[in-house]
């Protein structure tokens, strides 16, 4: 079912207009969150050019995410990472039939508006790019285009949903090829969901108020989420996924789908790996199929992973306190 908790019916992003003399409504919560639902059980792949986008489509990705540089390259290059060239985004939109998403900087309203004007299918307000505003995320209710946000905990996820995020991805550490952080965070979110569900089931409303204060969100969204026992929007896993087995494990932890960043196009066997990760995500609960998928890739051609403890730049911390 598609719950619409925290929905704002008077949001600026909702536009009613006439299209071929038919009344249409764009930007409603149903539509924006519904788009994320159409992505469920799929793999969204980071791409930087048309060639990679076509490989992703061929492999069965549900969407491509356009960036200027892959997360691991952003990590190496340093400096300020911004949204991708509009020309490249348009080229990719013209050459694939699957949806095209693009990243903008955290809190950079006008970068997001530029992407909305470009008609991308979804905007990712992403910690991979350099944050433009550490204190405020974009007020996403004002957008007609759905926006996905990263989160490391239930509190962060609910804060983003209250700002109008139509989809959540639990963050890992981008550009590392190390899935450990993604696993930690999805388990943390699941654990917190179980906690608030059991509080709700016990009927202790006062304790839910305490949770709402601790999470810095409204009581209403905590109560509704607790009742539901899961996030009220689609939740994907992201950050550090490099192999089919990584993808299958995250699906088994209850994620609705997978974002793969550097893991595919930084490996030397990008095409096989893209195929294999899609296969493992679709058939995550059939271990023989996951094994087949894992067999398609060569560990010697995987990207060299990074230990998160040794990193100077922890992208996952960006915008997390807001």
């Amino acid at each position, binding site marked *: *079912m598609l719950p619409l908790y925290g929905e704002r019916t008077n949001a600026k992003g909702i536009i009613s207009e006439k299209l071929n003399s038919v009344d249409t409504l764009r930007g409603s919560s149903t539509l924006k969150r519904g788009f994320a639902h159409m*992505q469920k*059980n*799929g793999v969204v792949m980071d791409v930087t050019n048309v060639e990679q986008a076509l490989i992703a*489509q061929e492999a*069965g990705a549900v969407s491509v995410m356009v960036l200027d540089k892959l997360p691991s390259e952003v990590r190496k290059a340093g400096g300020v990472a911004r949204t991708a060239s509009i020309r490249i985004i348009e080229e990719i939109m013209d050459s694939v039939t699957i949806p095209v998403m693009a990243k903008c900087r955290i809190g950079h309203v006008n970068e997001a508006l530029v992407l909305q004007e470009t008609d991308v299918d979804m905007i990712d307000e992403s910690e991979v790019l350099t944050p433009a505003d550490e204190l405020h995320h974009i007020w996403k209710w004002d957008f007609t285009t759905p926006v996905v946000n990263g989160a490391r905990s239930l509190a962060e996820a609910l804060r983003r949903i209250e700002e109008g995020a139509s989809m959540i991805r639990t963050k890992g550490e981008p550009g590392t090829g190390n899935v450990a952080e993604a696993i930690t965070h999805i388990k943390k979110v699941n654990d917190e969901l179980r906690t608030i569900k059991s509080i709700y089931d016990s009927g202790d409303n006062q304790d839910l108020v305490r949770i709402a204060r601790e999470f810095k969100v409204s009581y209403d969204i905590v109560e509704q989420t607790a009742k539901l026992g899961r996030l009220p929007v689609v939740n994907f896993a992201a950050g550090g996924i490099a192999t089919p087995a990584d993808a299958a494990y995250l699906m088994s932890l209850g994620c609705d789908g997978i974002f793969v960043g550097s893991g595919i196009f930084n490996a030397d066997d990008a095409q096989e790996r893209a195929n294999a990760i899609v296969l493992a995500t*679709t058939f995550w609960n059939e271990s023989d199929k996951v094994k087949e998928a894992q067999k398609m890739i060569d560990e010697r051609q995987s990207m060299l992973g990074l230990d998160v403890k040794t990193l100077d730049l922890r992208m996952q911390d960006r915008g997390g306190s807001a």
Partner: protein
Amino acid sequence: MSLNLGVLSIQGDILENILSVQSAINALDIDGTVTSVRTPDEISQVDGLIIPGGESTTIGQLSLANGTLKF
């Protein structure tokens, strides 16, 4: 005679489709079941197949690659 429906479980809103059909069966009080199907064998067992909303490009390609659909 009971009505057996299948939801093609490759990609998209699979769970929501199964839950909606289940609640419709309960509301109409008819004799029926709904299951998730993936293989040609499973598909041949059902009276009707629902292809859920999702990415058609993806569902099409994965169904072909895994022998769920034959053309």
